[in-house]
C-alpha cells in the first residue's frame, strides 16, 4: 500500500478536479488535443530539469513510497505523470475561475462543440 503513496496523490488530484469538467463543464478534457499541445513546453523543460536534479543529487525519490518503476535517467514513472496531471488540473482551475467570473483571460471563450 505504501508504494501507492505518490500514485494515489496524483489520482486524488484527478478525482478532486473532475467535477469542474463534469458539473461546471469547463470543457478542458473535451479540448484534449489543445491541452496536449499546451503541455508540451512545460513537460519537456521540467522533465529535463528533474533529470538534471537527479543527476546532480538535488533530490531523490523514496523506493518504498513509489511503485519502484524507474525510467531512463532514474525518474520514477509517477514523476512523469506529475508533469501531465498537475498541468491538467491547473488548466481546469483557470477555466473554472474564468467560467464562474467571466474575467478576461486574453483569448476568446470556447463555445460548446468547438473542442478540437
Amino acid at each position, binding site marked *: 500500500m505504501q508504494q501507492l503513496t505518490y500514485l494515489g496523490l496524483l489520482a486524488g488530484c484527478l478525482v478532486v478536479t473532475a467535477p469542474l469538467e463534469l458539473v461546471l463543464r469547463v470543457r478542458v478534457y473535451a479540448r484534449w488535443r489543445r491541452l496536449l499541445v499546451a503541455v508540451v*513546453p*512545460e513537460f519537456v523543460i521540467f522533465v529535463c530539469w528533474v533529470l538534471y536534479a537527479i543527476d546532480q543529487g538535488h*533530490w531523490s525519490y523514496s523506493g518504498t513510497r513509489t511503485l519502484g518503476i524507474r525510467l531512463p535517467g532514474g525518474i520514477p514513472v509517477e514523476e512523469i505523470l506529475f508533469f501531465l496531471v498537475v*498541468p491538467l488540473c491547473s*488548466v481546469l482551475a483557470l477555466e473554472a*475561475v474564468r467560467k464562474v467570473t467571466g*474575467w*478576461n483571460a486574453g*483569448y476568446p471563450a470556447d463555445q460548446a462543440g468547438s473542442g478540437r
Partner: protein
Amino acid sequence: MSYSALAVLAVVGVLVVDLVVYRTRMVTRRVFWVAYAIIVTFQLLMNGVLTGLDVVVYDPGTIWGPRIAYAPVEDLLFGFAMVTLTLASWAAVNRRANTPRRRGFDTDTRRSSTR
C-alpha cells in the same frame, strides 16, 4: 547550478515567455492570480505530503533552507514557473484556435469550427 539558482532562473524565464514571447500576459490578469491562489493551496497540500512522508528528499546543500509545509521554499518558485508556463501556453493555443479568421484572407481553407 543549485536548485535555488535554477528555481529563480525558471521564474525569470517564464515571465519572459509570458510577456515577450507569447505575449499572453497571464501574470497581468486577475483570472490568472485567482486561479493561481487556488492551485498554490493544493500545491502546498500535495507538496506537504510528498516531502512530509519523504517521498521526495532534498539535499540540504542545494537549497536555501527555509521550508513551508515541509517543502523547501524553492518549490514555490518551481511550481509557479510550471503552472505559469502551462497556463500561458494554454492561452496561446486557444487564442490561436478561437480567434475567427478573416473571410477571404484565410490561408487555411478548412471551415472554422469555432463558430
